[in-house]
């Protein structure tokens, strides 16, 4: 496919221009403009200075030609804001799912009728850019593109292609407004009807629909290099497939299949595919998903409706809204249109709670006493995190908010290093309280000196103690207690918007920084060694295989940790070369779901290839790996993230 090669070889980036970084803020500041006015003026400038470019062979158009979006506020203004407010990450809107169904069904002119002044100006600016795109397409002899843009996103989409172009224009605008981690929602749920109508009326057949979907998926990769998160690839362009509709009927159908096939054909990181599954999901869905896993994209990621929906209802979401969940960016659950939750506002470190508890006076009285101390530390951390989030400041998004009707403004807190913490406590229980081989003070001393001169102890801790992931009931029970302590510490707390706090099992990037903030840990993790990703075994735990891992990580009821955070299973891609073994992989995913796991991501790569890619990055420009909830090109990652993926593989199943 011509367009795919064009984008992979990055030719479309040649037309980009950079704007001066101080283009807006000093003037906006001098004029004393309010945040809404600043956002609107900036958007008007950006849309009117974008140059329409029609890429060779593309069907769905719009690419960024302005490489950067200069800030709306000066450095000293930010300093002042941060002095008085809690500012989440960059301060701009992120991680929510707009009402994509409304965008496609109503068209922007309908939204314009009820919009405020800023909203109307935003819509006018975007539609003006679309008109210029249409003219450019016509001039380039591409009447097909021009005709589509003459209808959408202004008017309701009437065909599949119009739906895709309407999505593209609005998604493009969300990024251009300065929002980030702009997720795609339940794509097959809201877009299937356009495809079905086109097929029924003969406008498309399966092959042409696939071509269109591939082209649409490429559009997510045109500008994704401009959307760096913590690392390149962390951009929240996640797409949810499957699940059930408002009447409880399964959504997975032809469009869902086309999406999996299109992702496999493109072999690019975006959009990141998620599939909602349940005990009712037919085997065929797992098989199709597994085919993509084995292709080596690090997705699909699976979410289990049997756990997530009851969990969201427990957290206060209405049953109908809970049943419509998607992911905000990586794996944090959010409700399209109605959720304005901040799913990643803080992170609690389980290993820190253990590290603090073993130093409490009297903690060595017995294991129960120690566990109580750990739970108190968890509560103290939770209190600290929640109390610190007051008077929050967000730059308003006058465009994005057109498509939101917030009902939920809950905050999500990650819980990091669960396996490191549970393994540490299991080791303490064994060596300090059961066999009494050493005192807690001696073990703490060994931790503080990074096990210097304590080789035998270190070896014992790392290889001779029970670990989460080995299906050991004792250590898994400890993990369950820690999770319960976390969720109960948040229960009843009310955030500054009147919402609740949701406990989660994700780590995001904290598997590095939370580990760096600690000395060694009693499970034998040495100073500087990271935690596992999200809800996963520690990196050096000796794991008999995926059955034990699944048992360990599904033993505890996960409906109370419904902020999300997947178990990650690592496989050697070479194991699944034939159709029969692929079916077995599909059965394994089904087994995870039936065991009531909440979320699962799978990596199928080879550590030899990854090592070789570190040595010869030029040979592996498109080698894709899964990081903590998103897929990335391996060679674009910082070394520590690369090393973490390799370590996960080497101890893998």
């Amino acid at each position, binding site marked *: 496919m011509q367009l795919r090669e064009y984008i992979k070889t990055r030719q479309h980036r040649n037309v980009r221009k950079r704007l001066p970084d101080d283009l807006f803020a000093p003037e906006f500041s001098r004029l004393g403009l309010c945040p809404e006015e600043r956002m609107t003026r900036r958007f008007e400038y950006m849309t009117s200075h974008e140059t329409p470019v029609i890429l060779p062979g593309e069907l769905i158009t719009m690419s960024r030609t302005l490489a950067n979006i200069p800030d709306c506020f000066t450095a000293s203004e930010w300093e002042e804001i941060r002095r008085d407010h809690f500012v989440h990450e960059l301060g701009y809107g992120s991680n929510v799912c707009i009402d994509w169904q409304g965008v496609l069904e109503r068209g922007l002119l309908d939204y314009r009728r009820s919009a405020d002044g800023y909203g109307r100006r935003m819509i006018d600016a975007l539609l003006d850019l679309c008109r210029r795109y249409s003219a450019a397409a016509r001039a380039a002899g591409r009447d097909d593109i021009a005709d589509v843009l003459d209808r959408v996103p202004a008017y309701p989409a009437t065909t599949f292609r119009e739906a895709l172009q309407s999505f593209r224009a609005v998604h493009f605008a969300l990024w251009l407004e300065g929002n980030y981690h702009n997720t795609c929602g339940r794509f097959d749920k809201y877009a299937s009807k356009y495809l079905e109508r086109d097929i029924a009326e003969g406008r498309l057949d399966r092959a042409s629909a696939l071509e269109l979907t591939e082209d649409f998926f490429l559009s997510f990769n045109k500008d994704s290099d401009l959307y760096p998160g913590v690392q390149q690839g962390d951009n929240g362009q996640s797409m949810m497939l499957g699940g059930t509709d408002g009447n409880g009927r399964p959504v997975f159908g032809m469009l869902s299949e086309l999406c999996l096939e299109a992702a496999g054909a493109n072999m690019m990181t975006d959009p990141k595919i998620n599939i909602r599954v349940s005990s009712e999901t037919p085997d065929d869905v797992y098989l199709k998903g597994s085919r993509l896993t084995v292709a080596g994209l690090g997705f699909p990621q699976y979410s289990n409706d049997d756990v997530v929906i009851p969990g969201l209802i427990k957290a206060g979401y209405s049953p109908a809204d809970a049943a419509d969940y998607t992911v905000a960016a990586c794996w944090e659950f959010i409700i399209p249109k109605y959720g304005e939750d901040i799913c990643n506002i803080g992170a609690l470190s389980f290993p820190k709670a253990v590290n603090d508890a073993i130093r409490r006076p009297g903690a060595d009285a017995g294991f129960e006493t120690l566990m109580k101390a750990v739970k108190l530390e968890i509560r103290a951390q939770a209190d600290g995190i929640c109390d610190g989030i007051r008077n929050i400041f967000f730059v308003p998004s006058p465009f994005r908010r057109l498509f939101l009707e917030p009902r939920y403004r809950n905050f999500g807190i990650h819980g990091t290093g669960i396996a490191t913490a549970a393994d540490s406590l299991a080791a303490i229980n064994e060596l300090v309280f059961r066999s009494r081989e050493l005192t807690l003070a001696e073990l703490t001393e060994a931790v503080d000196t990074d096990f210097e001169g304590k080789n035998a102890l270190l070896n014992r801790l790392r*290889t001779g103690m029970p670990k989460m992931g080995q299906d050991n009931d004792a250590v898994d029970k400890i993990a369950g207690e820690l999770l319960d302590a976390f969720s109960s510490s948040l229960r009843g707390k009310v955030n500054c918007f009147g919402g609740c706090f949701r406990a989660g099992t994700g780590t995001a990037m904290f598997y590095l920084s939370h580990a760096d903030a600690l000395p060694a840990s009693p499970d034998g993790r040495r100073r500087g060694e990271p935690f596992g990703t999200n809800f996963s075994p520690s990196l050096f735990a000796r794991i*008999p295989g995926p*059955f034990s891992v699944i048992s360990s990580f599904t033993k505890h009821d996960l409906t109370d940790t419904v902020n999300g955070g997947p178990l990650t299973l690592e496989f050697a891609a070479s*194991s699944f070369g034939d159709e*029969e073994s692929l079916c077995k*992989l599909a*059965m*394994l995913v089904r087994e995870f779901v039936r065991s009531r796991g909440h979320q699962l991501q799978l990596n199928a790569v080879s550590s030899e290839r990854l090592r070789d890619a570190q040595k010869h990055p030029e040979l592996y420009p498109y080698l894709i790996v899964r990081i903590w909830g998103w897929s990335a090109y391996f060679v674009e990652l910082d070394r520590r993230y690369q090393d973490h993926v390799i370590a996960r593989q080497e101890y893998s199943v």
Partner: protein
Amino acid sequence: MTGRIFDIKEFSVHDGPGARVTVFMKGCRMRCVWCHNPEGQSTEKEIMHKLSQCDGCGLCTRDNRTPYPRDPGACPRGLITLCGEDVTEEDLAERLLRYAPRLERMGGGVTFSGGDPIVQAEFVARVSSRLRDSGVHTAAETSLCGSADEAALLAENTDLMIVDLKLADSALHEKYTGMPNGMISDNIRLLKERGTCIMFRTPLIPGITDGAENLRALAEIAGGHPWEKLAYNLLAGAKYAMLGRKFDEKGEIGAR
């Protein structure tokens, strides 16, 4: 009764029907030049060094004052391991039965591999029989290089025999595996007469087993039973260094 294993691997996808748990039995009577599980050959326990993951921290030599410590506790990262674990039939059966519900849902079972399970035929038969009593499907993956009694014991107590076919010519068989194939052929005949469920398997070793003449002769032996041909992975020699041994010392693989 006690047996000696060297690994239990969950979710093996190429060792019989469905998703399986594979038990690696220690000890094999053959010494195939292409063997990729050299730690399974000796019935003795052996020290292994996972050199590929060693970052040269030096802690092991500091304690032991030798460049290659033999003590499994010496490496703080656990890269020095003792290969070989003695287990009673009760304990092993109990460990494996823990998987039973999952294996049933995934259409799988337990496979005894190795090494070669025929070396510990009685032990394998006893464990397997316990598993089958609880409804678990079992398989043995073997060369059949053993006595007729051993072969029959395995066949009687498993649901499937996965039999390795290597070379039809006995002299060549002896040259490359260290054993003639007469006993093997007899045992195959025995199993066929018994009506045992058999699946044959042949590793395609370049220049050794993959010749047209050999494959024709093996096809005759397989005689209508399922027969899988496995492409050989040339990286298979990786484990030899861990045992302080050399892989394919005479350079026979691939030398036509």
